């Protein structure tokens, strides 16, 4: 049985009056790739930031190895690596300087920094750009630099926010290969994406985020089978249409309670347009 490294229990997160996540439950198993998929703005990045203790949950608990993340911050800082969507490094520093800087901040001993940096540069294949300023790198290279910064201290868990975002198909493939390579080294990976089919072959487990909740959670094959779909894209579309229908029904029920007058059970064209327009 896989060890569950991280658990989210009934986690709700609101920003002001805006509820982003509503009582979600999720567990991240060790040595696996867990993908959190959902449409843009559904709260995927918020989940990742909750995992590392950057955000505090409004309610519920996030735990790492059964310890509240806020009580295990020292471990999280040492054991987690985070590759961000838009690159978390200094544009005015070179690739080498960025890696040296973060390696030192992660507490790697001076004698080992050189080797650690070289290893990671070889892994992400940035040997030719080692002395190039980060701002001068291509998008794909920036993604790899960010990944390198996240891996420089050899973390147990790598969190990747939209790793294939903005990449062309070729670079996307390279990135997926890289993710597999990292997994082979024994790193647990949590990633988010809205490019579903690419994750199909990479993730051991996926969690589908829809309307502030995790609506499906499990191995991709099992989920696809459950919904009778060949691809995750198909699963997502089916879930989406089901949820839209449910939401519409809920709305109708709400209106019925408010308006006692009997109305047609079918939505009007205007109402349908309104619902579809919102999508």
């Amino acid at each position: 049985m896989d060890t569950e490294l991280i658990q989210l229990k009934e986690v709700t997160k609101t920003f002001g009056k805006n509820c982003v996540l509503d009582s979600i439950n999720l567990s991240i198993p060790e040595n696996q790739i867990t993908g959190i998929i959902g449409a843009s703005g559904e709260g995927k990045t918020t989940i990742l930031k909750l995992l590392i203790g950057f955000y505090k949950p409004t309610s519920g608990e996030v735990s790492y190895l059964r310890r509240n993340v806020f009580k295990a911050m020292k471990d999280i800082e040492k054991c987690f690596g985070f590759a961000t969507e838009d690159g978390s490094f200094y544009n005015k520093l070179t690739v080498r300087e960025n890696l040296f800087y973060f390696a030192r901040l992660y507490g790697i001993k001076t004698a080992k920094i050189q080797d650690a940096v070289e290893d990671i540069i070889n892994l992400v294949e940035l040997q030719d750009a080692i002395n190039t300023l980060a701002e001068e790198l291509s998008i794909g290279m920036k993604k790899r630099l960010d990944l390198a910064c996240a891996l420089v201290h050899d973390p147990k868990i790598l969190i990747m926010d939209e790793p294939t975002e903005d990449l062309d198909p070729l670079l996307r493939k390279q990135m997926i290969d890289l993710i597999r390579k990292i997994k082979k080294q024994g790193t647990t990976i949590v990633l988010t994406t809205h490019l579903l089919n690419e994750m199909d072959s990479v993730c051991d487990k996926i969690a589908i985020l829809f309307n502030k909740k995790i609506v499906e959670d499990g191995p991709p094959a099992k989920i696809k089978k459950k919904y009778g779909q060949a691809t995750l894209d198909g699963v997502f579309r089916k879930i989406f249409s089901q949820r839209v229908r449910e939401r519409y029904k809920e709305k109708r029920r709400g209106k019925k309670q408010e308006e006692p007058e009997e109305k047609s059970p079918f939505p009007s064209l205007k109402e349908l347009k309104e619902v579809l327009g919102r999508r």
Partner: protein
Amino acid sequence: MFNLLNIIAKNFKILVRSKLSALVILLAPLLIVLLVGMAFNSSELYGINIGIYSPSENELTTSILTSFEEQSFTIQKLESEELCINSVKEGKTQICVIFPEGLSIEGTTDPVTFHADKSRVNLAYTLINDINSQISTKASELSITMTQALIDVVDEAKTNLIPKTESVSTAISDTTSIETKSDTISSSIPQVSALISSLGEAKNITEDLTCTNQTLVDDLEEQIDSVLTDLTNLESSTTAFTQIATEIKSKSSSTKTTLSELQTSLNSLSEILNNVKVTEAEKVVSPIKTEIQSISTDSSNLSYLFPTLLALIILLASIILSSTMVLRERKTKAFFRNFMTPTSDFVFLLGTYLTCLIILLIQLAILLAAAIFWLKMPILSVLASTGLILFISATIFIFLGIAIGYSFKSEETSILASIGIAALLMFFSNTILPIETIAEKFKYIALFNPLVVSNSVLKKMILFKADLMSVLPELYILLIAVAVTFVLAFLAREFTKRRA
């Protein structure tokens, strides 16, 4: 320590690679020194227009106006008191001076009135002092002239009296001699009587001799008679002479007494006159001499301004630099990764602080070097103590800037807040208005303003060469401010780091 150097090195690399920022940071203080040095390196007041209203013009008013013109002031003569006051209100003149009716060398009881724009208090008081001193100088000159004339008269009297004293002494001596001689005459008169008596007796004898030589006797007798007659006449004259001599003696004695009294008086007067030590009119006018002198040996405006300039540069550069640096760090995408590392908040805070401090120290080093080698300011002797105060002041304002940087989300609001707080600190200091113009309650608070304290300490050290021991109370206030601003900066980071 290793991480601290790592953070500082990173900050500098980023700074140097933003060429414009590096240029501004390094050249800004030089530019300030250059401009301020050129603008304030003199003790003159430039472009000052003085409105003058004088109901009657005479030699004295003309003389005062000439002295104003010698001070490079531009004089505008106005037709009435109202026009003169209005010229200040309209900004055509900086000050209006109204001379009273009948202001002359003989003096007047009415004062010379100044009308100044109090909203420009610093300038107004400077001008009033300047013009007042011009008028005072003129008044002193007049007093000196008049008193000198008085003393000349006394001197002349003294010169004349001393020879007269000698004459009186001679007169007394002469009178004494007359008296003596009169006594001699008086003493001779009884002898003449005795002679007459003897001659009478001789006549009687000659009568006895008639028998022997009658002719000879007759001749002798005749001769004796003639002598006797003469002597009788003489006797009667001597009686009168005796009378006169007695009178002379009496009068001489009286004169002698009078002259003796006069001599005593003159001696006494001479003694009093000799005892008068004042021989210069200026001493009579100003028994205790006063002279307005600068409390500092330096005389240019820049010398007085330099401590304030230092304090202002520290304030503005520290607050704006540190708040901008913090906000830029927060805005950078790498801030999130910094949060993820096991490096403590304290190290990040210290890294930002030290980066700002090093930049400021470079700026201050340029400023101080320019002051020493270009402006020839004698601050080498107090460089160590001044450096310590500059370091403490910079620390306060850097931590304040860091707190501002962490408290605001956007660069615009952060810069606005930095400028706002800097302006507030400047308003409650001597920089814009004298602290004496602030209401009592606020003035008390303003005395703890780090800008006021650091400015005051720097002034004492640079202008008056005060040592550290003499500014200990101020030093404690600054150290407390360091602690308070550090806590503020740390709390601001702690409360806001998760917002990014």
